[in-house]
């Protein structure tokens, strides 16, 4: 394997090379790598908290994840205190096709020590291979201490608890332009009805369409609609119905999901509302989700775009993402101001080995210490770990996401399509909602998805 480093120094140099090499070329990489390493090492690391793990010097733990350069640097940086204090070498590998690769590796009996799994559905599949290892008691204790109850459930298979959540994302967000809102006197809506009124108002004011949307994403085309529908399922029918829907205890073509999809249709299939600057309703199908929100700042042809917190990274360089900036997001409101359902995603650290060093590392990752270490070095990352200090997050959108996640009134639900069987969650649901946006009616759409459910 390439990039497997044998020593701390080499690792530092490598990280420096990767990070800097992209920006300034290969000059001066060695020096910067070293100083980078030193500064992190000297920065207030209290090694005493790691002493309970025992002597692990010279051991190695492999980590496999879907996060690649440049976002992986924040991960490797956050591992450094653990590496420096325990002497364990963490070998990180990122792969964009992680989701198929990890299954192949697990089935072939060649998995990494720790996999950062982005979906509960995939986690269940991996547990089903029989290669995953139950989480140690310390991790379970940390999860009870630092996370909302729902999270433990997502990583529990047949009553056994497997993995602590690490990162989390908030999907129930609507991007908008604070400047435009201020100019035109628009208010951030606090109920679904107000959202509708706002959309009508923007449409009536003319000059631009209220919404822009895009669902193209290669073979995953359609996934942004699944998020829309999950948000509406959660708001129109409540979290209990949502859970039943995800587990297929109520049918996909029942009145609840029909209402939810029609609720989405009231926005996305409405010619008066979409698709600001991008074409007609059908253009949603061919606009990539990365480009879809740009008309808010680029050309000012639409005002609202529903997308997760990570969307901040898509705006062009120089765009000020802040409450008083060019673009920011607000919470996609619930049915009334008192209910606060939040749709989100997250990652779980699943272990495939129970060597002491793997257990120790897994435990470190489940602590508030790690969450805060990671928060300090990250951009566009947030955790639902209650021990996280929002002041450690540097950008406003991460702070907003953390605020929403840590709000005691928040009812968090994990992305539904990620929990449904793959035949639905990453096939029929995508495909049928894509057909729906290009003209297929709601009934045919929900019927087809129901029929595709594995028997």
């Amino acid at each position, binding site marked *: 394997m390439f990039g497997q480093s044998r020593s701390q120094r080499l690792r530092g140099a490598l990280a420096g090379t990767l990070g800097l090499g992209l920006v300034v070329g290969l000059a001066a990489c060695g020096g910067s790598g070293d100083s980078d390493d030193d500064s992190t090492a000297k920065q207030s690391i209290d090694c005493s908290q790691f002493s309970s793990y025992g002597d692990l010097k010279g051991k190695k733990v492999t980590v496999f994840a879907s996060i690649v350069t440049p976002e992986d640097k924040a991960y490797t940086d956050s591992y450094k205190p653990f590496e420096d204090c325990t002497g364990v070498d963490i070998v990180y590998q990122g792969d964009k096709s992680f989701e198929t690769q990890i299954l192949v590796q697990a089935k072939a009996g060649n998995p990494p020590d720790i996999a950062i799994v982005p979906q509960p559905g995939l986690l269940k599949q991996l547990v089903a291979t029989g290669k995953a290892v139950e989480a140690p008691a310390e991790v379970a204790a940390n999860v009870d201490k630092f996370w909302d109850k729902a999270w433990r459930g997502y990583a529990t298979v047949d009553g056994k608890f497997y993995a602590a959540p690490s990162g989390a994302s908030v999907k129930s967000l609507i991007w908008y332009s604070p400047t435009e809102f201020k100019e035109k006197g628009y208010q951030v809506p606090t109920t679904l009805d107000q959202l509708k009124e706002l959309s009508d108002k923007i449409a009536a004011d003319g000059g631009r369409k209220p919404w822009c949307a895009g669902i193209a994403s290669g*073979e995953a085309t*359609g996934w942004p609609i699944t998020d829309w529908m999950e948000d509406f399922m959660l708001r129109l029918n409540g979290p209990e119905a949502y859970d039943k829907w995800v587990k297929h205890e109520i049918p996909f073509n029942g009145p609840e999901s029909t209402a939810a999809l029609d609720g989405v249709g009231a926005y996305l299939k409405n010619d008066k509302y979409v698709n600001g600057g991008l074409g007609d309703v*059908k253009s949603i199908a061919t606009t990539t989700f990365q480009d879809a929100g740009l008309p808010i700042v680029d050309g000012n042809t639409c005002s609202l775009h529903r997308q997760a917190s990570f969307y901040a990274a898509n705006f062009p360089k120089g765009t000020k993402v802040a409450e008083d900036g060019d673009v920011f997001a607000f919470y996609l409101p619930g049915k009334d101001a008192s209910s606060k359902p939040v749709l989100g995603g997250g990652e779980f650290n699943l272990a495939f080995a129970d060597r002491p060093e793997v257990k120790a590392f897994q435990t470190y990752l489940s602590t508030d210490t790690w969450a805060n270490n990671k928060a300090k070095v990250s951009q566009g990352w947030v955790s639902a770990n209650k021990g996280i200090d929002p002041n450690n997050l540097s950008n406003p959108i991460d702070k907003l996401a953390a605020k929403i996640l840590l709000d005691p009134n928040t009812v968090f639900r994990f992305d539904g399509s990620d929990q449904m069987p793959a035949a639905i969650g990453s096939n029929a649901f995508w495909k049928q909602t894509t*057909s729906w946006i290009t003209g297929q009616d709601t009934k045919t759409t929900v019927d087809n998805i129901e029929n595709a459910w594995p028997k």
Partner: protein
Amino acid sequence: MLAAILLFAAVVGVILFVATLFRGRRADRWVAYAYLAPTLVMLLVGLVYPGLRTIYQSFFNAAGNAFIGLDNYQTIFTDPDQLTVLRNTVFWVLVTPFVATAVGLLYAILVDKSKFESAAKALVFLPMAISFVGASIIWKFVYEYRPDQGNVKQIGLLNQILVWLGGKPQQWLVDSPLNTFLLIVIMIWIQAGFAMTVLSAAIKAIPDDIVEAARLDGVTAWGMFRFVTLPAIRPAVVVVLTTIGIGTLKVFDIVRTATGGQFDTSVVANEFYSQSFRSDNQGLGAALAVLLFLLVIPIVVYNIRQLRRSEAL
């Protein structure tokens, strides 16, 4: 890496050593067997075993733990989504080889013995050098759509031409089955160069005396093509047709890159991948792979026969 090379050297060494042990009348035969053994083992491990395993898996359910007989095959021929996949595959196989071969043949005849022959040939042959993924990305730009709005400029060639002619820009890759044919164009663009090269070589191999004799008889251009050129290069045409046909049945990259199989553009090879790896339905995926295998076999057999015949000429 070094270990692998050493292991390889050791295996080769053992085989060579074993080969020297045989003496006597039948030694040649045994030496041949010894040399063939590694290839045979690799074929068994890398081709025969996975093949049989796939066939076996195609009789099992999605998770691969319950025998369900021919249900997966029944799904392929009854499920509306799968029927669309079959329909698209039929379009691909019927259109691509014939059009690509026709274009290649026409081009070969047109540029034959012209002044710029080699340059003209290179031009058409170039797409062959581009990967399917690259070609699909290029053509995605050709089909690219921008809305029909005052200040918005088209960036797609096809829509720009349409706008110049006074039409409205279309979302070419959304409407089925038109989108499938637009994807087929990409394959034709790639394969026409291959057809042209092979057929051009065949045309040049036609003996001059036949052509001269036909000229003396006062044959027309069409007559020359119909009664002299075509019969003479018939085996080459068949080889080109079948080779492109095999490639077309397996087409995957183009569909995956251009539309991801969305908007009813999926074909068997793409569907087999998406069922196996995305939908987690290994049984159906395996059944589709077996179907693809069965469809390819007759063409491969015919292709090899024709190839032998054309070599015999």
